[in-house]
């Protein structure tokens, strides 16, 4: 270990003869700079930013802490662009995301989880952040056709354009947005928000081709011939049938998705006074709430109990507030029809829950003989949707779970085996949420770019994987993220155990205002209000910044050896003086947010402090 020249405090030899030679207190004569206590150390601290639990839980790998920090600093436009590096549609996901991030938030066990979705919506709703998207690269000449303009297709188009592809999106409907436009009611996601996202995509140079159905207007082979890359994201629209007596001839039965689609296309059907919705998923709840807003009395019939409902609990609670009734543990048995095809009554049987199935949910069984009837003018079915694969024309096999792909979402092909065809969203086997679809688009875009650059896709994907959740870091992939002030480890996740809650104050959360149920149920205008600037700043202050150094100075204050120094070479972060650091670990223990790691002394200091400039 090197000894700095000026550190020449070595005590000179001296003699003590009488008590008069003593200083008044017990103190070393020379100073102690020569005593390099760093030699006692066997573990050492390393400043290492990690993955916050929220980002780890986000399928899209949203760098939530990164933009919340900018928000705290009042840099709203910067926060917007930072957010859009990893997740393209903050105004959309800020409204409809199922908030996997918030469920994982390390703040939850302390007081109340952070309102990440509300903050994201605030950032997404800021009036037109100045300028175009930064660093939009020139086109490299390769083309991409995206089939379907839902969230998966939008996401793939966005990221592929950021990677230099010339992108065209094909949509069979006259309006763009797929499920966002036709499957999610406007009171949750206003049409203008979706339209604005497409305006932004067009501004990036992405071509939009509505009313063009692949397999009908253009065969898939033509796309394979005309484009270098394909991304299939045609979604899942074919509603499953109830397969009960009377269904086939009933004139007053339609799928929940069809109701949502027709309403969104301004062609709402007449439902009558009493509507029964069959199913327990999000489509069922959206259909029920839409029917309610169209003036009907609505009952949802679900074969399992409330806790097994796949629908988002928040949506269910709001539906109940608005007056939707739920009949659990019941399944339709047959529809008794009048002569004109209208419904006389719906006969249901009571169910009971048996042993858990493969998915962990308890399987419902008919309770023998327990039958009841429900009066209904219309029945809406929402027991699930299946993708339609007929347009694939044998190029790829379609299985029950969806189109088979590899980890880079490249479709396993039966014909045209050399074609670069990728798929995402509801046509592959992933959870059917908007954010999972967005994640799939991102993953496919990166994989396509790897293929274009002839890189080892699997190695790259492993390299840019965030934490344990499988999301990918676009910033790490492109290397265009500014060098973070502290070494960043993309693979370590900060858990609750690493947070020192003593350093935080309990603070009540800021909650988005929601209109009263009576007001909500009569209109399709949006039911929640975007945060004001003050609300957003207050809620942003609650972020714990898990695993990300904020320069709180705790390490500097607590270091008993004065060995934590402000970095002399830049204006952020700390440097450890390893001449004197004893490796006591107090900095590590007192870091409120797990931004310090203790590593083995044998790990070379140079290697441990070196930053990867590609970050």
């Amino acid at each position, binding site marked *: 270990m090197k000894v700095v020249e000026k550190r020449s*405090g070595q005590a000179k030899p001296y003699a*003590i003869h*009488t*008590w008069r030679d*003593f*200083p*008044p*207190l*017990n*103190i*070393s004569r*020379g*100073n*102690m*700079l020569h005593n390099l206590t760093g030699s006692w150390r066997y573990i050492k601290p390393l400043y290492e930013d990690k993955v916050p639990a929220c980002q780890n839980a986000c399928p899209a790998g949203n760098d939530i802490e990164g933009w919340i920090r900018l928000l705290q600093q009042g840099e709203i436009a910067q926060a917007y662009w930072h957010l859009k590096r990893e997740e393209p549609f903050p105004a959309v996901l800020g409204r409809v995301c199922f908030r996997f991030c918030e469920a994982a938030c390390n703040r939850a066990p302390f007081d109340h989880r952070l309102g990440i979705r509300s903050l994201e919506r605030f950032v997404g709703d800021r009036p037109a952040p100045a300028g175009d998207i930064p660093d939009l690269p020139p086109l490299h000449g390769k083309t991409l056709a995206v089939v379907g303009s839902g969230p998966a297709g939008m996401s793939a188009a966005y990221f592929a354009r950021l990677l230099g592809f010339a992108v065209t999106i094909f949509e069979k409907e006259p309006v763009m947005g797929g499920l966002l436009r036709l499957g999610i009611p406007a009171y949750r996601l206003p049409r203008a928000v979706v339209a604005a996202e497409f305006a932004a995509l067009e501004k990036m140079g992405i071509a939009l081709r509505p009313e063009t159905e692949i397999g009908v207007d253009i065969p898939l082979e033509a796309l394979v011939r005309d484009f270098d890359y394909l991304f299939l994201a045609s979604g899942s629209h074919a509603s499953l049938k109830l397969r009960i007596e009377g269904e086939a001839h009933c004139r007053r039965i339609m799928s929940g998705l069809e109701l949502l689609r027709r309403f969104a296309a301004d062609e709402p059907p007449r439902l009558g006074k009493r509507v029964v919705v069959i199913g327990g998923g999000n489509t069922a709840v959206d259909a029920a709430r839409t029917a309610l807003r169209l003036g009907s009395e609505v009952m949802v019939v679900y074969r399992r109990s409330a806790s097994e409902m796949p629908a988002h609990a928040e949506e269910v609670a709001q539906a109940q507030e608005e007056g939707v009734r739920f009949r659990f543990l019941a399944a339709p048995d047959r529809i008794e029809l009048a002569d004109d095809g209208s419904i006389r009554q719906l006969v249901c049987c009571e169910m009971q829950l048996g042993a858990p199935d493969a998915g962990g949910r308890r399987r419902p069984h008919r309770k023998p003989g327990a039958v009841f009837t429900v009066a209904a003018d219309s029945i809406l079915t929402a027991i699930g949707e299946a993708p339609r694969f007929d347009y694939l024309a044998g190029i790829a096999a379609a299985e029950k779970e969806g189109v088979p792909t590899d980890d880079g979402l490249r479709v396993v092909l039966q014909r045209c085996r050399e074609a670069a065809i990728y798929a995402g969203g509801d046509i592959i086997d992933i959870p059917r949420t908007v954010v999972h679809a967005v994640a799939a688009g991102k993953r496919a875009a990166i994989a396509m770019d790897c293929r274009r650059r002839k890189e080892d896709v699997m190695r790259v994907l492993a390299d840019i994987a965030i934490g344990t959740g499988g999301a990918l870091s676009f910033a790490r992939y492109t290397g265009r993220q500014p060098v973070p002030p502290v070494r960043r480890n993309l693979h370590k996740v900060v858990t609750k155990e690493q947070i020192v809650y003593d350093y935080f104050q309990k603070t009540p959360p800021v909650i988005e205002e929601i209109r009263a149920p009576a007001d909500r149920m009569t209109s399709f205008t949006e039911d929640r209000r975007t945060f004001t600037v003050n609300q957003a700043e207050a809620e942003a202050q609650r972020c714990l910044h898990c695993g990300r150094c904020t320069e709180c100075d705790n390490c500097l204050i607590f270091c008993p050896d*004065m060995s934590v120094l402000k970095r002399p070479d830049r204006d952020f972060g700390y440097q450890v003086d390893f001449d004197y650091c004893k490796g006591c670990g107090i900095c590590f223990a007192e870091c409120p947010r797990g931004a310090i790691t203790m590593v083995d002394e044998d790990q070379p200091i140079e290697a441990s402090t070196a930053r990867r400039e590609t970050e």
Partner: protein
Amino acid sequence: MKQVIKGNHAVSHAVKLSRVKVISAYPITPQTTIVEALSEMCASGELDARFIKVESEHSAMAAVVGSASAGVRSFTATSSHGLLLMHEVLHWAAGARLPIVLTNVNRAVGPGWNIWADQTDSLSQRDTGWIQIYAESNQEVLDNVILAYRLAESVLLPVMLTYDAFYLSHTSEIVDIPDDRQVDAFLPEFRPPYRLDIDDPHMFGGMIGPDYYYEERYVMHRDALKVAELYPEICREFSGAFGREYDVLETYRTEDAALIIVAAGTITSVSRIAVDRLRSQAKTVGLMKLRMFRPVPVERWRHALGRAAKIVVIDRNLTAGLGGVFAAEIQAALYPLAKRPQIFPVVAGLGGRDVTPEDVCGMVERALSEEQAAAGPLFWGLKQ
């Protein structure tokens, strides 16, 4: 500016005037209001100091050991059991030669639980190496703090200032609060000769073997002995600035006294009344008020008491199996004299029991009537 304030707030004002930089405390009855006022002053910005909340008195003392080691003027306050919990760190503070000032509200030690005046708490800390000074009035309480910082920083020893629970701590008296510029002139900013300095780091309080420990302690003792000479000089300067006179002790009508009463704290006030009353009966009685108890101003005690025939020492404290601490120490100090006064030790007023002028007159008359002092102390007012 004259104000009617409690003894505790006299301390708070004095700490503020002394421009203390670090205050660390754990609240304990009856001193709580000292630090309560100080915490408010820190919060309002009236006093530019760091107020450190701690979880015990041991930590309170440890915190000011740290701040004083870093070279800033530091203060803490406590009482009875709180002081006892500080005991270990009190030794350290003195050995490390840290000029900390501590005020202790003299209060009885449990059990039984008793929050009233009694000096056993501070007297049980007499061997810690701290300078100890006792006060009789709220004015004295205030002035003692300012004097204490001058003294402590001159000799690098900590000072414990004590005063009686409730008789002073919670009793309002007229107190002249000095002007801050006057105090600044008398008490300059602390410039420590030794302090923790990250650019010139030294080892403090390291291991020291039998070869040197003895000399190190002797150096501390020698410096403590200087206090008895230095303190009167500081008091003379104080008197010049503020017009109030202090010393290591105070005598009242002792010039021709055949009997001298010795007392500390508020019992001195009632003793002064008793002296006047006894003088009016042609009894030549005087009073010596103990102010500084550590270091022991031996020569001054001998000079003040040596010519009297009899001495009555009133102790509001008890070391079980011996008697009063003051009496024992005065006996020890006077023993080498060729002509020794007769000493009549009295233990009185334990746990806050009132000691009135009549009580003191009674003690004196008893001493005057006896030819020879008894072997042990007289327990005045004991329920027989």
